[in-house]
């Protein structure tokens, strides 16, 4: 099980900000594909963070990880 966080418009599109995801894919890329398919969203310009650190598509995932989907930021 991993914990998914969706922010900004992604959270609104998906209708949830936090989701417990039963499957643990091997990589961030695989998780993105699963999420895109499940929710019909595009994660093309979306960054990911695993346990609060920016991650790459090939980063590995483990049970208990928190993965945040981070749309282009607009703070400041």
């Amino acid at each position, binding site marked *: 099980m991993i914990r998914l*966080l969706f*922010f*900004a*418009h992604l959270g*609104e*599109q998906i209708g949830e900000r936090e989701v417990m995801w039963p499957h643990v894919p091997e990589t961030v890329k695989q998780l993105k594909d699963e999420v895109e398919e499940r929710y019909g969203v*595009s994660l*093309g*310009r979306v960054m990911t*963070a695993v346990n*609060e650190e*920016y991650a790459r598509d090939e980063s590995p995932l483990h049970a208990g990880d928190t993965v*945040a989907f*981070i*749309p*282009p*930021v*607009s*703070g*400041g």
Partner: protein
Amino acid sequence: MTEPLFVITDRPISVEDVMKKVMRPEAGAVAVFAGTVREWTNGKRTLFLQYEAYVSMAEKILAQIGAEIAEKWPGAKTAITHRIGRLKIGDIAVVIAVSSPHRAEAYEANRYAIERIKQIVPIWKKEQWEDGSAWVGDQLETTAYPSGKPEVKEE
């Protein structure tokens, strides 16, 4: 001083409080930047803004920016507070204070901080206009995504 230097808050920001965190006898210059909610952007009137953050990670990334600054400009000390929640016109959204022995580094490091915030800190703003609202989709403030789908090319 045990007050944290890098803070996400849902309360109004005191500029003096942020400044005081970086003032010290060896610094002769403090550069401060305050980003405020502007009423008009590209001819469109903003009523208010809603800021959202991935708070725990945002504070970490702000601290990382402070570390980057200390490495690039030795002797510079940085404090940053970013507000989230609903902000009205004129409210301060972010305050960056950088102190350094001389002024050139304070200005340069401060500007570096705001550019980095707009690149990598997980904070988002939603503009509320008279005729709708949208998440602002990129850090250059040039593109909004009324559909909520940043992947769609809109020109």
